[in-house]
């Protein structure tokens, strides 16, 4: 393991604010998926975003990465509004805010190594990469990332030959080589079995603690949020209805988030 620099940084909620959302809104036709969400995330925090499916969690994360454009509101990163960026600046922002997806979103026919190398596409030099040429240093970085997730032995396999848990770890490696300051994980374990879920959450937590990368993680399961995150934000119908430490998620709050006891049981 080359991730040896344990900083053990405290993930106190009072740390310096890096990401701030102000009245962020997204409408699809008449439906409002995300409704005036305002929140602030401190440097190095690991935040769980909870809510029923359709509560707007996924739209929220995709908006921060700007795969979906916001209808209204601001996304401030270190005080700079990134919600109106375009062109090269937008691409650079996407590089800094890495995404991890529920369905991994790897390119099936490419090798694991090439999939990880796609995380370097926004780093210079860019032209040779159009022809599949990555230099040795970038390969070093990519194999380092794979090794830190225990996937370096699979580097030359096709991505679709791996199991779900392995694919998600490759996707995390791809996010890591982007050298992001922020990782946005959209239901990273929803397609995985319990053992792989634990492994993936553990990897995310380790990245958060060892590298000090801020992590926003959409989760459908409350126990996972309690086990791995510092803070929870809950959405319902696009609005924030809870924002505080994971310890504060008591029964009444959870009932409010999930609407009914039945849905709540499912989330456990």
């Amino acid at each position, binding site marked *: 393991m080359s991730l040896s620099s344990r900083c053990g940084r405290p993930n106190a909620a009072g740390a310096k604010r890096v990401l701030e959302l102000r009245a962020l809104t997204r409408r699809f036709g008449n439906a409002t998926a995300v409704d005036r969400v305002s929140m602030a995330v401190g440097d190095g925090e690991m935040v769980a975003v909870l809510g029923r499916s359709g509560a707007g969690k996924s739209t929220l994360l995709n908006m921060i990465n700007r795969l979906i454009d916001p209808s209204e509101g601001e996304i401030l990163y270190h005080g700079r509004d990134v919600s109106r960026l375009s062109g090269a600046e937008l691409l650079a922002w996407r590089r800094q805010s890495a995404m991890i997806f529920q369905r991994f979103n790897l390119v099936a026919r490419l090798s694991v190594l090439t999939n990880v190398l796609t995380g370097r596409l926004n780093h210079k030099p860019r032209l040779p990469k159009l022809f599949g040429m990555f230099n*040795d240093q970038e390969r*070093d970085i990519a194999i380092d990332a794979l090794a830190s997730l225990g996937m370096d032995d699979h*580097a030359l396999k096709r991505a679709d030959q791996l199991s779900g848990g392995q694919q998600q770890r490759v996707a995390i490696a791809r996010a890591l080589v982007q050298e992001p300051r922020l990782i946005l994980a959209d239901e990273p374990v929803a397609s995985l079995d319990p053992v792989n879920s634990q492994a993936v959450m553990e990897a995310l937590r380790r990245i958060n603690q060892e590298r000090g990368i801020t992590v926003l993680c959409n989760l459908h399961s409350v126990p996972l949020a309690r086990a791995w995150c510092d803070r929870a934000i809950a959405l319902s119908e696009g609005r924030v209805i809870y924002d505080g430490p994971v310890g504060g998620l008591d029964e009444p709050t959870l009932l409010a988030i999930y609407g009914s006891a039945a849905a709540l049981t499912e989330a456990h």
Partner: protein
Amino acid sequence: MSGRPLTRWRECRPELYPPRGLALWRRAAAVLLGLGLFLWGLDALEVTPGRLIDGIGQLGHVFMLMMPPAVTEHVWDYVRAIGETLAMAFLGTLVASLLAVPLALMGARNIMPFGPVRLLVRRSSDVVRGIDSLVWAIFFVSVVGLGPFAGILAIAMNDTGVLTKLYAEAIENTDREQVKGVRATGAGRMQTIGFGVLPQVMPVLLGNSLYFLESNLRSATILGVVGAGGIGFFLMDRLMISAWREVSLIVIMVLVTVACIDALSRVLRGRLIGPVGR
């Protein structure tokens, strides 16, 4: 990751890196060989940069000469010729489709148990298909004389070859269970074909025929070059005497006709075989 010393993985994992030394040279040699072959081929085709540049200049010149299209008293001749072209494509496709069904049945492995007949049908369809409809047109002009009739026969001939092959493959790909089901009701050989095989392949047959109607319209536009009727005769004639503005008019008329037929055939295909049949 910044500041942290990177592991140099090349030493322990050379297979993950581009080759070096001899292997690299071998790869470079292969690339050079490919490039050399490519250039040699270009040379064989008499492609030189000078000719390309000159030609593009000429092309631009011709294009300027084509604008704007001229609407002359010949327009009604052109309209009639386009009608002729449409008739050629339509009748040619129709005759070919009708001829191809029995031939395809004779050429399909699951219908025709007698090998030599199958082979004869398949091979002769290969031969007919290997000859372009323009060559067939020349041949038929010498048989039935100048005019669109020769064009119809040429299209029908070439397409019978192509459609026989396509239909035969479609018939061979039919679901055996359904055929068995029909046979189990006590149906005879012909009835089995009629109720078990044909209903399954009908959408493919119709879809292909419509597709060929479109493609035949395109080939029918040029059969006039050898005297087999249609708009091609006027197109070539105007090209030969460098009446560029009339050439552009004809080309635009052809484009509009083809676009109309494409749209019509898309609608028909949707109606006949449903949205998935595309």
